């Protein structure tokens, strides 16, 4: 028994459900394999750690924060409408609204300043946005704020998010440490100011709380004797009342005061690239983290990724990596801002680039990836390329990907139905024919029957008998951008007993010839949890006690890459 096989069986088996032979085989493996023994011992130690009961106050805390969040969502929804109205109504109205926004957003700051004129150094400095008309200007130098120097949310900065950077808390041991922390702080501020769509304000010590979308608190400590510095960065949505702050990020970064960056590869020597652990480099890393994971997606970053995707001088793998990154970045934005963020793969430029990769990539896996990823984009420009792929691509997996996307997004087009009619009759692969028939027929009854019939069809090769079922299982866990999957394989739940018996008969042979199917077999059986019957028991028995003669090498025959 191999390492990966042990892992698979232990993960997919319910406690106490291991067969005797399989249990003994695992024991024998663990008695000789130090790496596995250590992996599982460490894992069990982590698993055994106690989890405290939920704090009593959490329920109330959430109940308190949700109404405020809903109000904030309502304000966010109104803001673009207001801004759009301003553009139409002219400058005079714009000024009025700007002042109104300014008053709303600085109400308690102004009250604090007015009520405590002798308060020490209370202030906010806005260094990134030109002041709105009618509001006292703020300079580029740090200054004390009075009642007339208030932060403003200008309507000309539509969609801008306010970021307040709190005063630096520096616990450094010596001057060199202090200098490192200050470089980090200055670099962080500088990087924030360069990000589009943000209004960055720097709070002065003792400043009153101000309404903001993000509040960044930096605590630093450096030591020349240790040669190190640390920067604790906390990003949160500040509370304006009894509601607790919402924490977005907290991380502690450690770096060298004077790192030997010359030893790094040439590309990494520039601290601006963020690869060198000097203060400026780490600040750059933090900016990248904030940019890609905390703040909503910014247009510049998206454009960079789109440019990479469009660059035909790069190989298909690099271009598709940029495409995947684009989805990831926007998926995070989706988490932050809800449903407002559209599918990042939609749009003429991205679609054109995707078509280019999909039609030119040599690797069928790359071509299939493109057409699968385009599911949900619903751009008319994709249709001719998808149709051409369905009709002419030599690799069936690519034709399957095209068929799935055409079915999901473009079935109402006559030319798509015509293409499906052709594929249903003439495609050389049964799976493609079945998908085309499923698209034309509508509903899943025929498709489920195809899965069952394929399993029972002993004239087919073993791999083809299970192909439709495995396609269905895979599709169920790969959804387009923004969609929610109900979980693995619904079709599996509809297989009748004869189909299950056929599956139990064919799967061991098919698994013997394919590592992918071997992996899928374990997960398939896991997905059958809660069901019972002779065939399902046989499948479980096969997974738990694979006969070497039937399944040589079993699951762990190949070490993971």
């Amino acid at each position, binding site marked *: 028994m191999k390492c990966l096989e042990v*892992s698979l069986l232990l*993960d997919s088996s319910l406690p106490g459900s291991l067969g005797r032979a399989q249990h003994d085989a695992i024991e024998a493996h663990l008695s000789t394999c130090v790496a596995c023994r250590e*992996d599982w011992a*460490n*894992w069990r130690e*982590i698993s055994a*750690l106690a*989890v405290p009961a*939920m*704090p009593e106050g*959490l329920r109330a*805390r*959430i109940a308190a*924060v*949700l109404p405020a*969040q*809903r109000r904030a969502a309502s304000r966010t929804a109104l803001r673009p409408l207001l801004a759009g109205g301003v553009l139409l109504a002219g400058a005079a109205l714009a000024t009025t609204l700007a002042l109104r926004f300014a008053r709303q957003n600085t109400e308690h700051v102004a009250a604090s300043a007015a009520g405590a004129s002798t308060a020490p150094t209370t202030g906010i400095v806005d260094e990134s946005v030109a002041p709105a008309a009618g509001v006292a200007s703020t300079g580029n130098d740090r200054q004390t704020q009075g009642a007339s120097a208030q932060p403003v949310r200008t309507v000309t900065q539509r969609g801008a998010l306010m970021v307040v950077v709190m005063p630096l808390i520096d616990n450094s*041991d010596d001057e060199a440490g202090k200098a490192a922390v200050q470089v980090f702080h200055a670099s962080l501020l500088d990087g924030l100011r360069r990000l589009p769509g943000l209004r960055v304000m720097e709070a002065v010590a003792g400043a009153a709380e101000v309404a903001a979308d993000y509040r960044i608190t930096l605590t630093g*400590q450096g*030591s020349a004797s*240790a040669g190190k*510095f*640390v920067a*604790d960065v906390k990003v949160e949505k500040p509370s304006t009342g009894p509601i607790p702050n*919402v*924490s*977005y*990020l907290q*991380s*502690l*970064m*450690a*770096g060298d005061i004077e790192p030997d960056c010359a030893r790094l590869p040439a590309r990494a020597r520039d601290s601006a690239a963020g690869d060198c652990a000097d203060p400026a480099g*780490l600040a750059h*890393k933090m900016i*990248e*983290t904030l940019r*890609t*994971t*905390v703040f909503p997606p910014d247009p510049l970053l998206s454009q960079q990724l789109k440019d990479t995707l469009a660059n035909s001088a790069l190989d298909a793998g690099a271009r598709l990596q940029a495409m995947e990154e684009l989805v*990831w970045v926007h998926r995070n934005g989706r*988490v932050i801002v*809800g449903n407002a963020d559209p599918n990042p793969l939609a749009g003429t430029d991205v679609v054109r680039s995707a078509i280019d990769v999909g039609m030119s990539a040599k690797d069928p896996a790359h071509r299939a990836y493109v057409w699968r990823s385009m599911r949900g984009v619903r751009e008319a420009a994709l249709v001719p390329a998808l149709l051409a792929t369905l009709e002419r691509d030599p690799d069936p997996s690519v034709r399957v990907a095209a068929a799935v996307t055409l079915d999901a997004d473009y079935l109402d087009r006559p030319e798509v139905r015509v293409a499906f009619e052709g594929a249903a009759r003439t495609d050389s692969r049964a799976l493609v024919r079945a998908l085309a028939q499923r698209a034309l027929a509508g509903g899943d009854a025929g498709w489920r029957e195809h899965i069952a019939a394929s399993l029972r069809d002993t004239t087919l090769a073993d791999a083809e008998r299970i192909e439709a079922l495995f396609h269905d*299982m*895979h599709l169920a*866990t*790969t*959804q387009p951008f923004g969609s*929610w*999957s*109900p*979980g*693995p394989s619904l079709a599996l739940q509809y297989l009748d007993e004869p189909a299950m018996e056929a599956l139990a008969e064919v799967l061991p042979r098919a698994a013997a010839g394919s590592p*992918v199917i071997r*992996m*899928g077999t*374990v*997960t*398939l059986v896991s997905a059958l*949890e809660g069901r019972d019957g002779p065939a399902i028991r046989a499948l479980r028995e096969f997974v738990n006690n694979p006969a070497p003669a039937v399944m040589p090498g079993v699951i762990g025959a190949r070490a993971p890459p």
Partner: protein
Amino acid sequence: MDNKRFSNLVEPHLDALFRAAYRLTRNRADAQDLVQDTCVRACARLDLLDDSGPVKAWLLRVMHNLFVDGVRRERSSPVTRVAEAGDSMAQAICPAPTPEQSLDSRQRAAQIERAWSRLDRGHRALLALRAEGYTLAEISAITHIAMDALTMRLYRARQSLTRCLHEDQAPPAMPMEAAR
């Protein structure tokens, strides 16, 4: 979205959410923040949710995305997490030890804590969900990782955990709490 809908759909799962969040963060305060953020995000989309659907899995997915995607780029950073006083793994491992046991356990707990914080967040999420008893099928539904890939990732996650523990032999660069 009304409060009743939130009460009906989300509140029954708060305990499970907190347990999963604590497994992920190993920190009571962070776990509470994560649960709160999950509820805030979920709140915005709750109207779209089918009442009869897998609400718990959906909520765990929101939490998983917040945890993993939310700091995706952080994995390449030399980031460590400061443990909260009185809320460390040491207490979880050994609630009432002898002085000698206490020292060993604290050292081991600190080592595990550092290794856990260095572990890739995606791996951490998989191990946390598995430790919480979710099946492969459930984890697949929560993480949207196809089940055939999931088994491999779990295998690698355990390997990574061991690697992080090995790498922890050297003392951390400069623990902020100790320096203070």
